């Protein structure tokens, strides 16, 4: 028996070189199979959900569909959590608790609320009060779904309640107090950008290296797409017929972009457009711009400055954006495009749009 085996061995000896070749080939097969099944090439995985009364779309780059889905779901859960804090119309939200205690007492708030309130107060300071969360008491006077504007005396009565300096933020103890009874804060001009920031943080924590979070028009991008290019963003044409009609495109790399426009919530009475971007000083919509887009490092700042700069107007607005070290694009009431000098070469305007002379 023993000799038989030895005999067989010697007779059917495979040359070493062949052995090596076969084993190398087998290795390739073994390596290639699991690799292709679980770690396919990088792809963009995209998911949309309705939250915060808007459409939120999250895209991530991943080798694995499972990983992408896990990360996207965590980011949506994070936004869901924030939605419960910042919902103006929900009586149980943190923002409603602050409003209910206006003129009465200080309200203990979450770290997220504190962070948003601190940023809001910073933007109010920098915009000279053009961005003001206390304009909430004016905004509720306009009925956008039925197209009803308030009577002038109703606006006048509420103007004294609009003042960001009457919001007291206790940073050490995480507390917020509105000085006067009847004051209402509305964080609609800042929380979508904040939500985009938090969602991006969540995706990064889940191990995602490249992604795009779009909370309606408040967008934050990080990393590059599988083809090595940055994420490409379109800026909506403010007077478009179709909802996806864009007037310019630009690349966004590890930055946030937000747009405020007079077309988001509005009605028209006797040729006058009543939209949701109100002057905290007069209580009426400001009509010097059609839309303002801001590019900044943080979504929360891009969002709030887009609102504030809209109210400031095109010329002073561009100056402020540049002073803050941001970039931006403003469409004025005539439809002319103003851009900051940094991005003048980087932005691709669609035809039919003319650049404003001088900026």
């Amino acid at each position: 028996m023993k000799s038989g085996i030895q005999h067989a061995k010697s007779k059917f000896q495979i040359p070493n070189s062949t052995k090596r070749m076969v084993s190398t080939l087998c290795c390739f097969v073994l390596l290639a199979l699991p690799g292709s099944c679980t770690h396919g090439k990088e792809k963009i995985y995209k998911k949309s959900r309705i939250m915060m009364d808007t459409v939120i779309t999250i895209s991530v780059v991943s080798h694995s569909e499972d990983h992408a889905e896990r990360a996207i779901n965590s980011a949506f859960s994070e936004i869901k959590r924030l939605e419960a804090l910042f919902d103006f119309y929900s009586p149980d939200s943190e923002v409603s608790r602050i409003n209910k205690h206006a003129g009465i007492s200080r309200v203990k708030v979450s770290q997220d609320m504190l962070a948003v309130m601190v940023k809001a107060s910073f933007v109010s300071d920098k915009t000279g009060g053009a961005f003001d969360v206390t304009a909430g008491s004016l905004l509720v006077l306009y009925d956008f779904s039925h197209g009803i504007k308030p009577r002038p005396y109703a606006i006048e009565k509420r103007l004294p309640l609009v003042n960001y300096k009457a919001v007291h933020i206790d940073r050490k103890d995480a507390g917020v107090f509105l000085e006067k009874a009847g004051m209402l804060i509305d964080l609609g001009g800042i929380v979508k950008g904040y939500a985009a920031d938090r969602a991006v943080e969540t995706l990064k924590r889940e191990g995602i290296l490249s992604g795009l979070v779009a909370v309606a028009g408040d967008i934050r991008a990080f990393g590059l797409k599988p083809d090595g290019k940055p994420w490409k963003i379109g800026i909506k044409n403010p007077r478009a017929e179709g909802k996806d009609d864009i007037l310019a495109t630009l690349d966004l790399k590890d930055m946030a972009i937000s747009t405020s426009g007079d077309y988001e919530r509005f009605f028209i009475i006797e040729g006058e457009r009543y939209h949701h971007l109100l002057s905290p000083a007069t209580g009426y919509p400001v009509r010097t711009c059609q839309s303002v887009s801001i590019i900044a490092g943080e979504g929360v700042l891009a969002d709030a400055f887009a609102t504030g700069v809209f109210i400031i107007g095109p010329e002073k607005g561009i100056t402020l954006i540049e002073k803050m070290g941001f970039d931006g694009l403003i469409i004025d009431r005539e439809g002319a495009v103003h851009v900051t000098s940094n991005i003048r070469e980087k932005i691709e305007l669609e035809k039919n749009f003319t650049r404003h002379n001088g900026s």
Partner: protein
Amino acid sequence: MRKILRGTTGADKVLISVLILVSLSGIVFIQEVMPKARNVLIEVDGHPLYVLPMGRDGIVEVEGPRGKTIVELKQEKVRVKDSPCPAKQCVKQGWAEHGVIVCLPNKVVITIGNDGDDVDTVVDAITR
């Protein structure tokens, strides 16, 4: 097994290995190169209700907070046929082959073929 091995030469073994390699690589090739079947996912308020194959024609109704949204699939295209929302933007969007159809008031999201190959769009997102 030993008997079979005894009847083979070194060259046979190489041949067998190559044949195995070729057939296995076929599996890899098909998975990588052949397009996956595209599905249509219909969700209401974040809850998936239907996953439908793109190739089959038909009509489904989903119940949202405002009532019934009627979705039609036909010849590899999808549309919202009718919706209880006031502006009916989802209906106006018409037939879609890629991307997403959303009805905000009725909280319906229809995602078409989310297989990571959504490359034929000009921009990745629109700021508005």
